[in-house]
């Protein structure tokens, strides 16, 4: 690695440190929840190492505990991580001209946090080594916190009775609330909340996906109606 590249890499690694620390509770949760859902330590670590998507990991673990089937977990993963399509589209001008190994490497590392730090650069300013420093540091931090969560989850008994499932609710509520800034999003959340409880009460296998899609559809229709009126 030439000196300029090393400098850019370290610059990126330093820039992501605060966000890497803020993700610690999520990582701990991802590790300990995996153990709580009866995954092995290797499987818990594998989720963080291979999937590398906090919300999708926690949701998959939650659905596994609820007895959901493979197809509905995969469909939920696809829907939950679909915002990455938009990140990819937005970063297409700077990332798509890169060689294949860079595209695939930085593509794998394209998280919400990565996007937040690197998307502001245009084609002239964008430095692939800076982006690699950001992405790799965050990846290592996420996996280290997951490992700590796995160790804690294995050594503290009755972790499942500590109400850890509320931490998913607390985390998601804290993420959803700032998004509810307009009527369509409020309608989306309301429809999704009501139908998810109703469908689960009816013991539907695909309750969560169906409720999520209905909520998204309701929000979308609401937005279209508002656009049509203005």
């Amino acid at each position, binding site marked *: 690695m030439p000196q300029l590249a090393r400098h850019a890499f370290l610059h990126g690694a330093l820039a992501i440190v605060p966000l890497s620390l803020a993700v610690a509770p999520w990582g701990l949760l991802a590790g300990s929840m995996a153990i709580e859902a009866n995954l092995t330590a290797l499987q818990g670590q594998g989720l963080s190492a*291979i999937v590398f998507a906090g919300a999708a990991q926690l949701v998959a673990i939650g659905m596994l505990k609820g007895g959901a089937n493979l197809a509905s977990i995969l469909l939920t993963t696809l829907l939950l991580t679909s915002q990455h399509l938009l990140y990819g*589209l937005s970063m297409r001008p700077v990332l798509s001209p890169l060689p294949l190994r860079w595209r695939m490497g930085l593509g794998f590392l394209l998280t919400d946090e990565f996007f937040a730090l690197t998307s502001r650069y245009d084609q002239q300013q964008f430095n692939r080594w800076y982006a690699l420093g950001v992405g790799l540091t965050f990846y290592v931090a996420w996996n280290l916190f997951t490992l700590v969560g796995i160790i804690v989850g294995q050594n503290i008994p009755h972790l499942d009775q500590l109400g850890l499932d509320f931490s998913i609710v607390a985390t998601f509520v804290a993420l959803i609330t700032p998004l509810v800034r307009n009527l369509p999003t409020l309608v989306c959340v309301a429809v999704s909340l009501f139908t998810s409880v109703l469908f689960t009460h009816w013991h539907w296998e695909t309750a969560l996906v169906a409720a999520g899609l209905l909520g998204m559809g309701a929000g979308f229709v609401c937005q279209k109606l508002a656009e049509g009126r203005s």
Partner: protein
Amino acid sequence: MIWLLIAGMGTLVFLNRYAFLEPRLPLRLGSNARQFLGFAVPGMLTAICGPIIFMPDHQLDLSLLNPYLLGSLVAIALVLLTRRVLLSMLVSMLIFFLLRSWLA
């Protein structure tokens, strides 16, 4: 089954991330598709929270003294008042645990 799930999830997440970085792909998401996908985070995350809040132990609990419901309301209030996600999570979890031991 678990490893199949991990491999499947890893593939799907990577495809979502990589799809538009592929230079040979001429496709673009239409504005309707983008708008619909824009509701994915609130819609999907809410759907996951719903049953955890209102069906603890797989039993419908619509009581106002349900600690999951009270804890969620506290979390919403804290986010709106403080705008600090991490703080709101931690404080609402603490209040949830207190409520649960009182109301149990």
